[in-house]
Structures are given as C-alpha cells and as structure tokens.
C-alpha cells in the first residue's frame, strides 16, 4: 500500500514500516519528537523520583486493577445500580457499532443537532464522530489538541497530546480557516482564538459527550481528568451529558480513587494532580442552576472481554496516561501516526493487534526494542515488553504469517542446540567463513539471500574470527589460573 507523506496522518491500516519512513523524513515532526523525552518524559521520571515510595503506590494501583478485573461483572452491576439510584441511565454496548447507535439514538431522541465533546480516546476507538456527522449532528471537539486535528482531519498522534505532531506554524494555518483571518504562530493568540470560538459552541450545544477516566461502582460516579477545563464545560452547560467508558475503567470504591489520581497525572505530565478532576454523580439535583438534566453512561466491551479472558489481560490495567509513549525510543523516532491504530506507542503496539487483529498489524509487536523503558514509566507497571514478546510468539502461529525459511532456520538452530557436536561444527564453520569479515568490519551490512531482510534496516554483528571455546582452551584458562594464583598469594 503506497503511503504519501501526509495521508498516513489520516488513514488507519497502513504499513508501519512505510509510515515510519515518512515520519523519519519529516523535519518538523522530528523536532517535536526530539523534545518529548526532555519535557514530558523527564517530568514523568522526576515525578517518580520525587514521590516517596512511588513503586509501592504504583503497585497498589496495580493490585486494585487486578482485583477488580477478577470480579468485573459484579463491579459493573454495582456501578449500574448506583448510577440508576442517582438518576442516571446505563447503556450496554457489546461493540463499536452498538455504541455508536446508542449515542446517536440518545441525541436524536432529544431532537438535538449540536454536540460538544471533551477528549475521549474511547470515542476515537469507536469512530463516533463520522457516525454523528452522518446523522447530521454538528460535533465539535473542544480539547484544544482535538479541536485542531478535527479541523485538519488528522487522527490523534498521542494519547494525551493529540496534536503533538503539529508545529505552531501548522496550527496557525489550521486555525486561520475558521478564524477567517491569518493568525500568527503565537501560542497565546491561538489559544485565545480557540477559547472564544469554542465558548460559542459550548453556549449553543444541547448535548455534551465525554469519556471517563474512572467509574466508581459504590457511588455511581464517573471521574474526568482534564487540564484545560473543557471537560468541565462539557458537563456544566449542555442539558444532556453522555459519558462513554470502556468497561475496564470501573474501580470498586471512592477510597480507591486517590491512588489512581496520584499516579495518573504524574505519569501523564509529571503533575501531582491534573488541573481539574471532576467526580460526577448523576444529573443536577433539585435547585441547582447548572449541570445536565440528563446523565447517560454507555459501557463498552468492543473486544475487551476477549482480552480479559486471555493471558494479555494485564493490558486492561492501562489508564491511558501516555507515559510509555514519551519513554519509548521507537515512539520518539516515528511518532504516533505510524502505528496506524487509535492507540499508539508501546501500549498501542499491544492494544491495536488485540482489538484490530494480529495479522493485520503484524509489524506492531516488533516495533519495540524491548528496552523496558515503557514498563518503568507506567503508573500501573504494565509489563509491556513481556506482552510484546507474547504477541510475537502468537504471530508465529498465525496462518499466513509463517515463513518456511524462518521455520527452517529455527529448526536448524534447535537441532544444533540439542547436539553439542553439531553446535561446535556450526560455530567452527561460522568463524572460518563469516568470521573473516570481522577483520575488515565488526558489522555485516548485507547478508545474502533470504537473510537480507534483517540487514535492510540494521547491521548484523559479524561472528568473531576465533570462537570463545578455542580462546578459552588456549588462553582464557591460563589467565584465570594466573589471577586465582596471585590472589591466593596475597592472602597467605
């Protein structure tokens, strides 16, 4: 599939490798990705360092997630009962199509035509906006980054900073259109324009749509965390609030919440707490002048139950903070769009194959150096590298993904490990053939035949001219003895 430099910003299902080439060739993208490690990445590392017992707190959050998922159905039932008791309505969506139908139906029932949205990755996941537009509902994204990419027609390139891939200059060009005049590439002016344009939308909107960072079963609340305040406006001004949540977002008790809040903002931006954390419990009460009159909670499965029953269930611990993206050397080279899915970075490399099919996304489990930086950054300590390895193994068993050559190579390898004489023969041969290269260069830049695939993207280390076992037999043993002897002398 051919990918031009810009269309992979919009398209899903493209080739990771081709899109990566495009990303690596974009100077403005490289400039911003270069900043990521020193800004968000550094703030996250500093935050873990400054937090006493950060490891134990993250472990606590992890324990709660694990415990909750073990009895997820019961917690969802409790959540439903509490939401209903507070005057809200609960809707169950088994897949994306059902969720879209529920949301569109709720809006049409009210005869509403104008909707404001606060940032929700789950709504991206179910491709809600195209469905709303097809139904003739004017939909405005109100998170600044989402607003910008909605106007540009791009997909989000980062879980928390969806417009991260754009320079101030590009943002100015995009916002100049609705402004009807040329805006300068100055952040304050651009933000002020967005504030004013979006206030208008908030004032007119009949329905507000949000995601949910958490849902609290015992109190029937959803929790929304934002820095800009658009999340607050979304559920303060419109008459109807629809919240969309992945079913794994539920936590049992209000008392569990502080631990997640303490690690979420630190993971995302290094803040102790994000600017606005809302705990929303049902529609407005009697006598209140603001807040929605109707509250709907849409609970989404969309493949989550399949993951919940699988060895990769731990991926459901994810609280979508983006820390693993900022820490990842691959993400910081190619950016979010190359991954093709809604979720990018290390966790995207796990989630996209799980939700969207492994064979269709066969490059993603390999889009990692397995360095472990993602796991170290993660507020719930998700073992992303292990999951990627597991996916690589599953990939190997996918029909259509098996290469006869690869199987043959591994079979030979396995045989030689089982038979010491064969292994010895193999290494002897390698040292005498490929090993000669080493004298010229320690790296092989081109391997022959089927092996050329490896060297297309990286070099292969040349085998040493002398095998370790030969060196050991001749010199190593001697040296070892010398040291032991001299140490012995010192002691006596």
């Amino acid at each position: 599939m051919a990918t031009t430099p810009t269309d992979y910003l919009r398209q899903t299902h493209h080739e990771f490798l081709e899109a990566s080439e495009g990303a690596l060739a974009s100077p403005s993208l490289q400039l911003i990705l270069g900043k990521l490690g020193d800004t968000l990445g550094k703030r996250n590392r500093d935050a873990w360092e400054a937090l006493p017992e950060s490891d134990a707190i993250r472990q606590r959050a992890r324990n709660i997630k694990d415990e909750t998922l073990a009895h997820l159905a019961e917690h969802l039932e409790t959540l439903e009962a509490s939401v209903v008791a507070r005057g809200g309505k609960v809707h169950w969506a088994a897949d994306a199509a059902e969720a879209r139908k529920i949301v569109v139906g709720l809006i049409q029932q009210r005869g509403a035509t104008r909707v404001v949205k606060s940032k929700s990755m789950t709504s991206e996941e179910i491709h809600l906006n195209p469905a709303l537009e097809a139904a003739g509902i004017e939909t405005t994204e109100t998170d600044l980054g989402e607003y910008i990419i909605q106007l540009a027609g791009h997909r989000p390139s980062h879980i928390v900073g969806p417009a991260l891939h754009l320079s101030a200059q590009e943002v100015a060009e995009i916002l100049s259109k609705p402004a009807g005049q040329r805006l300068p590439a100055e952040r304050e002016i651009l933000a002020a324009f967005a504030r004013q344009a979006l206030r208008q939308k908030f004032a007119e909107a009949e329905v507000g749509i949000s995601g949910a960072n958490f849902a609290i079963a015992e109190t029937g609340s959803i929790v929304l965390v934002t820095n800009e305040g658009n999340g607050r406006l979304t559920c303060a001004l419109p008459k109807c609030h629809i919240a969309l949540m992945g079913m794994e977002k539920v936590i049992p008790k209000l008392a569990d919440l502080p631990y997640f809040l303490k690690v979420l903002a630190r993971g995302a931006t290094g803040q102790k707490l994000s600017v606005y954390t809302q705990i929303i419990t049902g529609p407005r009460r009697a006598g209140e002048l603001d807040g929605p009159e109707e509250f709907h909670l849409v609970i989404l499965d969309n493949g989550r139950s399949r993951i919940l029953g699988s060895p990769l269930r731990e991926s459901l611990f994810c609280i979508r903070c983006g820390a693993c993206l900022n820490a990842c050397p691959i993400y910081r080279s190619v950016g979010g769009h190359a991954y093709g899915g809604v979720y990018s970075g290390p966790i995207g490399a796990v989630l996209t194959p799980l939700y969207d099919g492994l064979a269709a996304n066969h490059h993603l489990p390999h889009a990692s150096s397995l360095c472990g930086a993602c796991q170290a950054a993660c507020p719930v300590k998700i073992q992303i590298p292990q999951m990627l390895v597991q996916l690589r193994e599953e990939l190997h068993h996918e029909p259509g993904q098996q290469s006869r050559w690869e199987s043959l190579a591994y079979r030979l390898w396995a045989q030689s490990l089982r038979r010491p004489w064969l292994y010895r023969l193999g290494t002897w041969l390698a040292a005498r053939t490929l090993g000669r290269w080493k004298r010229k260069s320690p790296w092989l830049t081109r391997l022959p035949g089927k092996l050329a695939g490896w060297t297309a993207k990286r070099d292969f280390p040349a085998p040493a001219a002398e095998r370790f076992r030969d060196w050991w037999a001749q010199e190593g043993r001697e040296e070892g003895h010398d040291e032991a002897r001299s140490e012995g002398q010192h002691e006596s």
Partner: protein
Amino acid sequence: MSRDSFLATVRQAAAAGRAHRVEHVPVPEQTGYIGLRPGEDPAVRLAAEVDAVGGTAFRATDLTAARDLLASWLTEFEVRSALTWEHELLARLGLAQLLAERGIVEHTHRTLVEMPEEARRLSVLACDIGITSCDWAIAETGTLVVCSRPGQERIASLLPPVYFSIVEREQIVPDLIDAIGSLRTTHDPLPSNVTLITGPSKTGDIELELTTGVHGPGKWRVIVVG
C-alpha cells in the same frame, strides 16, 4: 437482553482471566499517603503549592486583611461583574457589600434564579471574575475541592477568565486521601459534581509548551486566611 448477555460474557471472561492474574505484592496500609512534613504549617504549605501550580496565593492574618486584599484586586482587574457563591465564609467576609460599594454587579444564585433562562446564560458568560470558597483545600498538592449545590454553582470557578478563591485554615487538610475520606463520610450520596481544582486552566497541546487560560480561568488567585 443485551445487558444480560453483556454481563454474562464479562462474567465468563473474568473467570477465565483469573488464571492469568498478576502477582500481588502486598503494600502497607499507609502507602500512598504523603501529607505534610513534620512540623509544617498547613497554610504555608498550601500557599506554596498554589504558587507552584501556577496560581498566586496570598496569606491574610484575618478577615479584615483578606477583605482589603480582595478590594485591591477588584480595582486592579477593573472588575464590573462577578459570579459568586453563597457561602458562610464569604458572608462573614462581607463580600456582597464589598462588591456593592464598588458598583460591581454580583450574579449569585439569588439573582440568577430570578432571570429568564436566556438572560441568565448571557449574564454568566459575560462575568469578569468568579469568587468562591471551597469545601476542603489540600495542602500537599495546592488543590481546592469544590462541591456543587444550589448557591454554589460549578460555573463560578469555571466561566470567568479570572478566578479568586478564599480559604480558611480550618478548611485545609494535609493530603488528597484526607479530602476524599471527608467527602465520603460527609456526603451520601455524593454531590452531583465534585471538582478538584489544582491550578489555572492549562494546555500543552501546541508544541508541548505551557499555555494558560484556554477554557477555564487563566488567572487564579487564592487568599489563605489565618
């Protein structure tokens, strides 16, 4: 029907998933509680943290000092209209009188309920400043916890570009865990909206650089009394 099949699927999956649970490392009950350093003054810490998150905090020894401070801000920002809470601390401060003396239009629950809906909407959107107190203030993070109820609208701390908060020493708790604990024991059911405010409205969406005031108030000042 779809509800029951949804939950049945989840129940089955959760049971199957129990074979793949992750290792639980027990953590002590206190884990996660940070609070204050030994001997630290909560009011001093709160003020320092409000400053650290981009707000501006001022300490006032008593209500009279707080009133003077607030009066000077009203002049500084050339305030003509204010969106305010009805709150016992603001009443003791004499806020209504302070505003009236300066010819500032005060929009509060009492006046807003009298207005037709459209006029109310336009008035609140046009206010120069918002003034509230809070339910609790969290010293360790520089956070105010505001609960919505008639007279204490969510829009007061949200719509105007400038936001002033008045906090008393008695309202300060050391840690987020204390605030959530108090919320749980004092409110059942929870208020329709509880918001933790930690800073002025912020975004890093353009080139990862901090920009304030994109949706909520870009300027946040806090008076800590006592």
